[in-house]
């Protein structure tokens, strides 16, 4: 039986920021796939290229569904604001 080495490590974080706006669905989708799938620089080129292509496809699909979710939420917000008697504001939000 051998003694096992014991190492504790902290992962590297990144910071992403915006000015005068929020993040776009594409920006968030890219972070999402970065979180789900890490492609090693040391991976064999054929496998790495396939993984990168798959990741790009996933990013597109996720961004598309995020846009649907935003649009759907906007419908909910529109109706809530309209029901509160603020039709003009509701229309502004619907047209964003």
């Amino acid at each position, binding site marked *: 039986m051998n003694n*096992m*080495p*014991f*190492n*504790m*490590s*902290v*992962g*590297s*974080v*990144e*910071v*992403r*920021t*915006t*000015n*005068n*706006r*929020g*993040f776009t669905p594409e920006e968030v989708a890219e*972070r999402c796939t*970065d*979180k*789900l*799938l*890490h492609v*090693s620089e040391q991976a064999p080129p054929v496998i790495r290229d396939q993984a990168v292509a798959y990741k790009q496809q996933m990013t597109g699909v996720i961004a598309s569904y995020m846009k649907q979710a935003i649009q759907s939420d906007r419908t909910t917000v529109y109706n809530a604001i309209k029901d509160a008697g603020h039709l003009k504001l509701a229309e502004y939000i619907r047209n964003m």
Partner: protein
Amino acid sequence: MCTSFKVELLKGIHNFTAASNVFKLALYTNSASFNAATTAYTSGNEVNGTNYTAKGNAITTVTPTSSSTTAFVDANDVVFSNVTINGVRGALFYNEAASGDPTVAVLDFGSDKAASAGDFTVVMPTGDASNAIIRIA
């Protein structure tokens, strides 16, 4: 990683599964001086700006797991929404629910970051045995 955290793990002070443990991320300017000897949250040199609340935002951690011989804790990205903050150089990952707000780790952003009437997101690494935010190998 803070040395005190290693000791506190052995004392059972931190539990990344229990809902009663509230882990948070506080942001600091480049005047802050943190290292492995940092033991607890401090308000000194914490950033100050529109919509930023002192003591920072909660970190949602994922139940610890393992892959091969490495145990790790994953965490969701931490978003500070619609903030105006400047000169943000790093962060303290700490446990607000434990007595004295003990630290887990010091995170250095590498350079000063800023957001103006926008979102400031600390992006956590991929949750695997090679990259996760906290790993024990």
